[in-house]
């Protein structure tokens, strides 16, 4: 990844950006996000197939934004997140430089949003392969089995909200769970309350989820909560033929409509 380091160093040296958000290896060897502000330290940046965290979550973080213009190492999900964030007015295209990473791990030349859009449009936007099998398996269960499965999984939830915090699209200053008039979601973590929380989260991400799987990855107790949003991503495509994060001007599925939207259950 010499190119990446070189480019990051360049950007910092000529002050195009004030911070480069990328990946580094921690002392235990775990890949983690890095925030490089000093061009001399650009060498810490790495990229390999273990770099799977969606870094776009930091683009809306106050302390990171305070640096100034940001460059970000961006795989496809990050790029799509960026598109969503711009379209939802959480980010200005001018305030970032995208260090695109291709599917085979090479630095892309993403000069502007249009080029990024072109790249995204060429890519496979459906849910990642590794999740498809599990989704398909779950979809085969009968309703009672599904309900049992999710009850069991969600009973583990401790409401640490790592799923929310890790998600670039969950950028609200105040989450619905923090609303107490009325108390939409019970504060305590029990199966029922957890289920309400995860339904709420999935619905809020319907048509906005870019299938990075970050929520499931972040979950400390291993709940596959990403499957909920990914199922809806599939359904959004089935019904409305769109994927989230393909343009900086898109409106999300639930904030738009077509008069001839098809359904079969409303009598």
């Amino acid at each position, binding site marked *: 990844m010499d190119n990446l380091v070189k480019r990051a160093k360049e950007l910092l040296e000529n002050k195009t950006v004030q911070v480069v958000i990328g990946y580094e290896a921690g002392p235990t060897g775990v890949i983690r996000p890095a925030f490089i502000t000093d061009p001399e330290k650009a060498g810490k940046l790495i990229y390999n197939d273990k770099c799977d965290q969606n870094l776009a979550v930091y683009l809306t973080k106050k302390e990171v934004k305070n640096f100034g213009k940001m460059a970000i190492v961006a795989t496809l999900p990050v790029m799509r997140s960026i598109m969503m964030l711009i379209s939802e007015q959480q980010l200005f295209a001018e305030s970032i430089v995208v260090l695109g990473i291709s599917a085979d791990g090479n630095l892309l030349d993403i000069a502007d949003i249009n080029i990024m859009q072109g790249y995204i449009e060429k890519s496979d936007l459906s849910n990642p392969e590794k999740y498809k099998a599990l989704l398909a398996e779950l979809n085969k269960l009968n309703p009672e089995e599904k309900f049992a499965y999710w009850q069991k999984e969600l009973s*583990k939830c401790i409401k640490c909200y790592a799923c929310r915090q890790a998600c670039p699209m969950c950028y609200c200053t105040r989450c619905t769970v923090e609303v107490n008039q009325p108390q939409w979601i019970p504060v305590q973590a029990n199966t029922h309350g957890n289920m309400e929380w995860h339904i709420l989260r999935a619905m809020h991400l319907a048509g906005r989820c870019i299938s990075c799987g970050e929520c499931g990855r972040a979950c400390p107790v291993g709940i596959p909560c990403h499957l909920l949003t990914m199922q809806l991503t599939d359904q959004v495509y089935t019904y409305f033929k769109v994927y989230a994060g393909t343009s900086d001007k898109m409106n999300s599925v639930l904030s738009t409509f077509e008069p001839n939207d098809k359904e079969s259950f409303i009598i």
Partner: protein
Amino acid sequence: METTRKLIRKQSVEKLYNALTSNRQVYAPVVAADKQIEYRYNPGFAEVTFGHIRSTLSVKNVVFPKVENLFFYTNARSESTITDIDMSRIPEVVLWGAHPCDNAAFDTLRSIFCWDIKDEFFSKRLEKLAVIGLSCHLSDEYCFCTSVGLSPDSKKGSDILLSLLKNGDYHADILTEKGNEIVKSAADLFETVSDEKEVITEVKQKFSHEQVTSKLSAAFEHPFWVENSLRCIGCGACAYVCPTCACFDIQDETRGKNGKRYRSWDSCGFGLFTLHTSGHNPREVQSQRWRQRIMHKFSYMPERNESLGCVGCGRCSSGCPVDMNIAEQLEALQNI
């Protein structure tokens, strides 16, 4: 009480376990279907794991449950009444196979819940808890008990501490009266000590907690906090998996005219934890909250609660989605 050491054979361990589960709630670690280590009540002995490094969640919930009902109430038109929790219904629990770090955490929790005013819910649960600990014969890069004054075979917090021997048998250190009671109830299973070597893992010391504590007293304004918390995403995972984190929330939940007031886990990492109704937030950004977490455990608690708020289990680091490695940060802190 004078502590004694006995031997318990591999096969007797199963007998002891079965004897305990026959008349008590035994909370023991198992490997769940998704490979997570979790504690369950009275799993079959075959399921119980002896080879885990750390469970995903700590076992603090036996004394500080995710949700603790504080009382029930009824709101009628004219009268509101409160019904107390029947604390006698709190079950006797034997915690089985928990590692020394987790067991030491009960002392830490006690220092929070019982300093000044005693918290009866916690105390009662702790009173009804017997701990059969298990020394660590395995560890990983996240473990740092030796840096916080503990060790893989610390006896703190255990009533009985089992330590694996090379031949598969265990040494049992009987440490308290509670432990003694258990031993007495199954006296035939315990034998005299052999000279077989114990298998105890080695955990390298990474920092000196005394030095960290002394450094922290003047480190409130240090740029370290901002620099090292940039990647923190502000979830509550570290606090919720932590065996000593005791922050909680108090809430009401009503159905019709009946309801309950409960306390549930909370985390100082959440943005709204300290938010005033006015909109002012004393700990507005993540760096301030990260600082609070470390300060609380390594500076405020030693001073106010006479205990260290960390047992070095490493869960917060292994469970962190963004590798906020606490040992690494403390190591750095002792050198600032």
